């Protein structure tokens, strides 16, 4: 019986960075053999200790970083064998919202230009059309169109974050990796964006890979959670299972450390 | 040494001691008298060495030097020179006829490529130098050569004991470079090498064995040292002279002379305008036989240039007075011919000074078939007359003169364009490619004697600028000049020579193969208190009597 092939299959992925502090310092092993599968239309949350390699994995998947070894199959194609022009079509299909999105915005460009940039790169629409679409996207993430001419440094942290999200959404990728995309956003905006993502998934069958520390939010957004620890995926499973029956000590530690959030005594009526 | 034949100077008795500082425009390239060509090298070598017969720079006549006396055979082909006895080189080695024979052997040796060699070829054959005895030398010439004794000037006598080996091994041209240790050098000049700092200075010290004494019988030179500093720009030379860091200055431009002259008293220096020198600047047209295919434009224009009336008209249109005033601040003399008023012995005084006459110029052009249309000069075929003048870009005076010429000729309806070129590029066009229309240049006679001008005026001469490599004189007057120049060469009677040379000058003034412009004055300066300072219009203007220069007690320095 032939099951539908997964959208992404990662096997034995490692990434080593040259060490710091002295000539002989050992190399930093950011990824120590990752195996991961993402099925179409699923949401996977990647959770783990700070510095465990989540962002590195995300960057490798988006082909923005060259892994040291291992394989990445995307939709049946060996991604790591592709280079230059042949990679371009895949770039469109995989989008990454970088952690620290503030540095990922060109400080010289204006908000609307930033959002319409992917459209421009992919040659979608004319200038007018692109701008219209950019303003639309800005509105969907809660940025008024009046700010189209602002430069990133004239926005608040959360507004920059939303700009980065809007930009990634402009492409309509197959796989969207959101590296701490919700950090720094207030609950209302988080909810707004979450439902936007959900909506897109429903309409276009997107696959999401979330990287986040917000376990509660991840519990809400993801079907599955993978826990990373020191460059490895130490535990992976359905959200409910992980939350109710964590197996790896690190998972347990993570869950235990979540401060209990106050719930309003009487939820105000809508 | 009392037994020696010392030469007694007739000039003021001075005081021994002191140091004289002189700035050189560029670094001397060598101290080898056989190969030296550049002026700074010659300036230095001249103080280190001596010649057999010397031209007194002030009287412009020959005077005995290492040769006590000389005799000429009646046919003018044999010279016998009697050398001074008991002289020593600066290293103490005695001097005799062998050194003389050796020296001339070096100059004549083709391997050495000495610039003096060509002068020592008379009638196509090298001069034969024979030692008669230890203190007598004979020179045999292939044909008579007027004033041949002048040839001995600047042919420095070399120490055989130091250079013979190098000469035999064919290494003479490499000998006596700047880096040579002083101990390996010796000469008969008033000074000898003391030290050399590359790019900076060259110090000479007094030669204790020098062969001149003053009227009081005390040995010359007076000065302990001469220091040659390298100061590569004229402006810096002026500034340093003004600052009191150098004692003598020569080759001053008129403009700088004017500026310096303002502070003469306060600056404790004295400037002298020696009047016209031997330099003559001139405009000439390209009359070379050209390959009409390659240089079609120029050769077309040659039909104008070769017209004597055209050249006369151009000459008549020039405002030489204006040039003398604007370019040389009045310290220059308009020339009618190539011999300058500085050359008192040979100048043809009967030639009228050049006068500007635009109407005369127009007449001549009209007679030669030129006409004007809308103020523009046209030739017979209706072509507008225009040409370019090339000149040396780094020589401001030349460029200025060219600019004045351009303006003057505009009044005549000629369109002239000045093209200043870097010197080598200019020379390449004049001597090699012949790709030019007119050029503005200057020559300086090395000597007052017409012989030094031979190669400029005879039509086959290598410096016959306007028409190089002429196989036969192109015009009757050129033929005549050729004949005159050759005759004066073999004529021994000075009066007759003068008559012949006067005629040459008249022919030049009439036919203008080159259009003489200006002779700038020789301008020099010296620190207050320098005794026996007797600058001359012949090179080296101020240093030629270095052996007699001394510091008066009043001099505030050193």
């Amino acid at each position, binding site marked *: 019986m032939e099951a539908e092939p997964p959208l992404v299959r990662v096997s034995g992925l490692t990434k080593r960075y040259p060490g710091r502090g002295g000539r002989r310092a050992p190399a930093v092993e950011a990824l120590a053999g990752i195996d991961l599968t993402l099925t179409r239309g699923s949401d996977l949350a990647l959770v783990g200790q700070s510095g465990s390699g989540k962002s590195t994995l995300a960057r490798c998947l988006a082909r923005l970083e060259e892994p040291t070894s291992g394989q990445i199959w995307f939709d049946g194609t060996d991604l790591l064998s592709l280079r230059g022009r042949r990679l371009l079509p895949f770039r469109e299909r995989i989008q990454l919202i970088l952690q620290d999105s503030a540095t990922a915005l060109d400080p010289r460009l204006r908000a609307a230009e930033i959002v319409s940039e992917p459209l421009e790169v992919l040659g979608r629409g004319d200038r007018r059309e692109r701008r219209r679409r950019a303003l639309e996207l800005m509105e969907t993430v809660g940025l008024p169109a009046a700010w189209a001419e602002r430069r990133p440094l004239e926005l608040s942290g959360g507004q920059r974050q939303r700009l980065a999200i809007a930009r990634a959404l402009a492409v309509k990728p197959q796989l969207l990796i959101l590296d701490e995309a919700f950090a720094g956003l207030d609950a209302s905006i988080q909810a707004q964006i979450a439902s936007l993502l959900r909506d897109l998934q429903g309409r276009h069958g997107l696959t999401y890979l979330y990287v986040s520390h917000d376990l509660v939010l991840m519990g809400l957004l993801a079907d599955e959670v993978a826990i990373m620890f020191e460059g490895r995926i130490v535990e992976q499973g359905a959200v409910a299972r992980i939350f109710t029956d964590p197996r790896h000590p690190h998972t347990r530690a993570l869950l235990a450390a979540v401060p209990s959030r106050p719930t309003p005594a009487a939820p105000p009526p809508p | 040494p009392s037994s020696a034949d010392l030469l007694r100077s007739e000039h003021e008795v001075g005081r021994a001691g002191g140091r004289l500082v002189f700035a050189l425009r560029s670094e001397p390239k060598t101290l080898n008298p056989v190969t030296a060509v*550049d002026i700074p090298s010659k300036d230095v070598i001249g103080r280190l060495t001596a010649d057999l017969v010397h031209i007194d720079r002030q009287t412009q006549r020959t005077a005995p030097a290492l040769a006590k006396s000389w005799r000429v055979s009646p046919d003018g082909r044999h010279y016998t020179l009697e050398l001074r006895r008991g002289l020593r080189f600066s290293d103490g080695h005695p001097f005799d006829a062998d050194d003389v024979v050796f020296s001339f052997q070096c100059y004549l040796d083709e391997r050495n490529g000495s610039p003096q060699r060509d002068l020592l070829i008379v009638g196509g054959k090298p001069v034969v130098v024979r030692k008669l005895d230890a203190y007598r030398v004979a020179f045999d010439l292939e044909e008579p050569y007027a004033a041949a004794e002048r040839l001995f000037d600047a042919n420095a006598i070399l120490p055989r004991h130091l250079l013979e080996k190098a000469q035999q091994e064919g290494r003479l041209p490499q000998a006596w*470079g700047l880096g040579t240790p002083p101990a390996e050098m010796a000469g008969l000049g008033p000074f000898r090498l003391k030290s050399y*700092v590359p790019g900076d200075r060259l110090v000479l010290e007094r030669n204790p064995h020098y062969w001149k004494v003053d009227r009081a019988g005390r040995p010359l030179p007076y000065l302990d040292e001469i220091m040659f500093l390298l100061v590569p720009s004229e402006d810096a030379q002026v500034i340093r002279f003004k600052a009191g860091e150098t004692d003598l200055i020569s080759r001053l431009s008129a403009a700088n002379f004017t500026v310096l002259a303002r502070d003469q008293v306060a600056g404790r220096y004295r400037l002298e305008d020696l009047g016209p020198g031997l330099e003559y600047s001139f405009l000439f047209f390209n009359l070379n036989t050209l390959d009409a295919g390659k240089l079609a434009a120029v050769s077309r224009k040659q039909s104008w240039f070769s017209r004597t009336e055209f050249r006369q008209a151009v000459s008549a249109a020039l405002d030489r007075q204006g040039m003398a005033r604007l370019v040389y601040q009045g310290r220059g003399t308009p020339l009618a011919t190539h011999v300058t008023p500085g050359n008192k012995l040979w100048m043809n005084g009967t030639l009228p000074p050049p006068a500007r006459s635009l109407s005369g110029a127009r007449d001549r052009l009209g007679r030669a078939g030129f006409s004007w249309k809308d103020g523009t000069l046209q030739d017979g075929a209706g072509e507008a007359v225009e040409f370019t003048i090339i000149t040396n870009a780094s020589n401001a005076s030349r460029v200025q003169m060219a600019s004045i010429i351009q303006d003057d000729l505009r009044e005549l309806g000629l369109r002239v364009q000045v093209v200043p070129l870097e010197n080598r590029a200019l020379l390449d066009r004049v001597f090699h490619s012949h790709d030019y229309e007119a050029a503005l240049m200057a020559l300086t006679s090395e000597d007052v004697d017409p012989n030094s001008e031979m190669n400029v005026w005879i039509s086959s001469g*290598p410096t016959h600028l306007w028409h190089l490599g002429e196989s036969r004189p192109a015009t009757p007057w050129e033929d005549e000049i050729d004949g005159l120049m050759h005759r004066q060469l073999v004529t021994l009677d000075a009066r007759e020579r003068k008559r012949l040379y006067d005629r040459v000058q008249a022919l030049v003034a009439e036919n203008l193969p080159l259009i003489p412009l200006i002779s700038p004055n020789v301008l020099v300066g010296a620190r207050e208190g320098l005794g026996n300072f007797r600058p001359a219009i012949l090179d080296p203007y101020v240093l030629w009597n270095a052996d007699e220069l001394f510091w008066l007690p009043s001099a505030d320095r050193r």
Partner: protein
Amino acid sequence: MHGLLLLAGVSLLSFVLVELAPGDYFAEMRLDPRISEATVHALRARYGLDRPLPERYGRWLASLAKGELGYSFAYGQPVGPLLWPRLRNTLLLTVTATALAWLLAVPLGTWWATRRRGPADAALTGLTAMLLALPDLVLVLGLLLLAVRTGWFPTGGMVSLGHEQMPWGARVKDVAFHLVLPVAALVLGIVPALVRYVRASVADALGAPFVRAARAHGIPERRVLFRHALPAAANPLVSLFGLSLAGLLSMSLLVEVVMSWPGLGPLFLEAILARDFHLVLGPVLASTFLLLGGNLLADLLLAATDPRIRTEER
């Protein structure tokens, strides 16, 4: 390896360039009425100027191998010994001047970057503009005039007349004293442009958020400028610094000529104009070496000042 190739390229192309330019060394002799054409030809033949280009280049290479660096027509001797003592003097002058210029320009430009608008800004703008509007030669002559009028500094040369007799300490002082004017000329010539570059890049860096962060931590303003903004602004300055090493030799040509500094300047200038070609090649090769060194240094510094630059990969 790169270096050798580069040297070969530079020398060969220089040969070609000279070939293109009109005239050769012996052309000037033609002006001397006493010298015949035959003599000039003989001289040209002696120095091989009548040979085809490849042969001349081969000869030059052979002489390079012997360490002579070719043969000067004017001096009639190998180029090497002519070059070394002067090169030393030139380097003394130019290295001092470059070091001083940078030492001056970096703090000044950095400080200037913080004074946008205001009297200091206006004064510096005007001053640099004025210095840039002066032809170098005029600047040098002006300084020389100043020296003459005031008598404060020697007007030329590298040592005083009695230098040889001085004790060691006095000699050093003497040379330093003579350095003042030429170094001042060079520094005034280089600094305006340098200061501008420093100012422009530091001003750029001062707008970065991390500068505000540094201020927020109470880092002293000086340190904010020099340890935060300047390193971030260093990139073009480092490249410029690498290039400034290369420019060392040519930089001082004029100053040396006018201030009679016994360096390569007068020699080089004369050699260029006289087409004394092997002598020209000497300094050209020397500056190629400096260039290589400077650029290597700049590349290393570049990687050091900006760790984000990756040298391998991609």
